[in-house]
C-alpha cells in the first residue's frame, strides 16, 4: 500500500509532519514496513479547512489530524489488511 501524505504548504502548516511521525510509529508498531510505502505528495488540490490530505493508494482522505489519526489508521490501513488493534 502506498500512503502519500501531503507536504504541500497548506497541509504542512496543518501538521503533516506530525502525521508523518505518527504513521512512522504505527508502521513500526504493527511491523508493516514491507507492506506500506510512505511518501510525500505536493497538494492534491483539496486543501481543507482542517487537517491534512492523505492518499491511500487511489483513495484520497481529507481532514486527517493528530486527533483522528487512530481512527483513520484503523479504518484505512489495519482493517483492509485484516489486522486487529
Amino acid at each position, binding site marked *: 500500500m502506498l500512503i*502519500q*501524505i501531503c*507536504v*504541500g*504548504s*497548506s497541509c*504542512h*502548516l496543518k501538521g*503533516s*509532519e506530525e502525521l*508523518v*511521525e505518527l504513521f*512512522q510509529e504505527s508502521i513500526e508498531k504493527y511491523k508493516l514496513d514491507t507492506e506500506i510505502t*510512505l*511518501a*510525500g*505528495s*505536493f*497538494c492534491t*488540490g483539496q486543501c481543507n479547512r482542517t487537517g491534512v490530505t492523505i492518499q491511500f493508494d487511489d483513495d484520497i482522505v481529507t481532514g486527517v489530524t493528530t486527533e483522528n489519526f487512530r481512527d483513520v489508521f484503523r479504518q484505512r490501513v489495519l482493517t483492509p489488511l485484516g489486522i486487529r488493534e
Partner: protein
Amino acid sequence: MRKFDTKVQYLKYKVLREVARQAWNDTLLENLLEIPKIIVPGKEPTMRCCVYKERAILSERVKIAMGGDVNNPNCIEVIDIACDECPIGGYEVTNACRGCLAHRCEDVCKRGAISFDHQQKAHIDKSKCVECGACAKVCPYGAITDNVRPCVRSCKVKAISMDEERTAVINNDKCISCGACVYQCPFGAIMDKSYILNVIDMIKKSENNAKYKVYALVAPSIASQFTYAHLGQVIAGIKALGFFTVVEAALGADMVAFAEAKELAEKGFLTSSCCPAFVSYVKKQFPDLAPYISHNLSPMATIAKYMKEQEPDCKIVFIGPCTAKKMEFHDEKVKPYIDSVITFEELQALFDSKGLDITLMNEDVLDNASYYGRIFARSGGLSDAVKQGLKEHGLDDFDLKAVACDGIEACRVALLKASKRVLDGNFIEGMACTGGCIGGAGCLTHGEKNKAEVDKYGKEAYEKTISDAIRVLK
C-alpha cells in the same frame, strides 16, 4: 513603488510583458512585428539616436524574449546592434589633469609609462602601461580614469572580449552564465534568453491543470523580492497565472544539506553543487577539483526529482533569481526533472501580462522547508545548513571548516588554494553572485536589506530542523 533597479530592466520587462500578453491571447504571430512599435510609439526617440534604431534593437529583444538564438547553446546573448562600443582604453589621463608639480603619478609608476607635455600635463605610454591603476589612486585630482567596459569589468571569468567592430563577444568556453554582464551593461546589450513562451504554452495546454499539473518551484530568495507586496500575495499571484501550486525549492535545499553533510563526512573534502555557475566555473577553470564537487543534484533538481517520481506526468517550472539555472535545466542529469526556468523579472512580466495586481490579492501560504533550507538564498546559509546536517546525522565529531565564498573572485581564491592543497577548510560553499542568490542577475531588486529579509523568512519556517522538514522525503 520601485519594481526594478534600472531602466534597462524596465525595458526588458516591457518587452517580456508584451510578448507574454500576445502569447496568452494567441496573437503573438500576427502582432510580432508590431511589438517594437507598441513599446516605442511615435517619432521621437527616447533612448537612442532615432526611433528606427530603437525599434530595430527592440526586435532583437523580442527575439530573446521568445527564446533567442537556438544555435547558441549559451543562455546569455549579446545584442550586437545594442552594444554601444564603449571605450576600451584602460587607464587614461582626462582633462582634469592640472599639470601639477608633485607628479605623484610619475613617481608611483614602476614602468615609467608616464611622461609630461610642455604644459606639464600627464600622458600614459600605452606600450609600457600594465593597467595596475597605481597612478589613478595617487592623483590628487582624480584625473586618471579607468576606461573598462562595464561588461568586461563585471565578468570575473574574463569571457568577454571585443570583435574587430568593437562589439562585445562572449566566449562560451569560459562563460558560466552567471548573468553579471546582463545586469551591469548600461545599454542592455547583453540579455538572458527567456523561456516564458514555453511556460505559457505549458500552462495553457494543461487545461487548468486537468491534463497534467504545472508546479511552480520557487527559490528561497523570493523572500527578498516583490517587496511591494506580501509573500503570500506573490504565491497567490503565481497560482492565478495558472500554476497548480507552489513548492519551495528550499525543501530541496533541506534534502541537499542532509545528504551533503553525510557525503562531506565520508569524503573529507567537498565543494557545494547548488550554484550552477559555480559548478560550471570549477569544471571549466579547475578541472582537477571537479571530482570534489558534491555529487548531490542542486536543491532545484533534488526536490523536482522527488516530485516527478511521485507524479511522472507533472510539469515543474523553477522560478528564481538565476540566469545560470537556465543552463542547468538543459543538463542531461537535470533535464528529466525540470521543464522550464524563469526569473523573478520574468515572473513580474507574467503577472502584469495578465493584469494581475498581486497587492490586491488574498495571501496564500508557502511552507514546506526548514529554516536551514531557506537560508540557502544568502551567502553562508549553505554552510550553516551543512553544519546542522552533520549534527542531525550525529556526526558532531566531524570538524567542519566551511569556507563560504560569494562572488567568483572569492571562489577563485578558495579554489586556487584548494588546488594547491593549502586551503584552511574542508568545505567550499561556492556562490557565483555577490551575497549569494539574493545577488542574482534575475532579481528585480538588489539591496542591503535582502539578507535580512531571507533570514526573517527562514525564522518564520514552521520546521526548525532539517530532519523534520524532510521526514517523509528521506
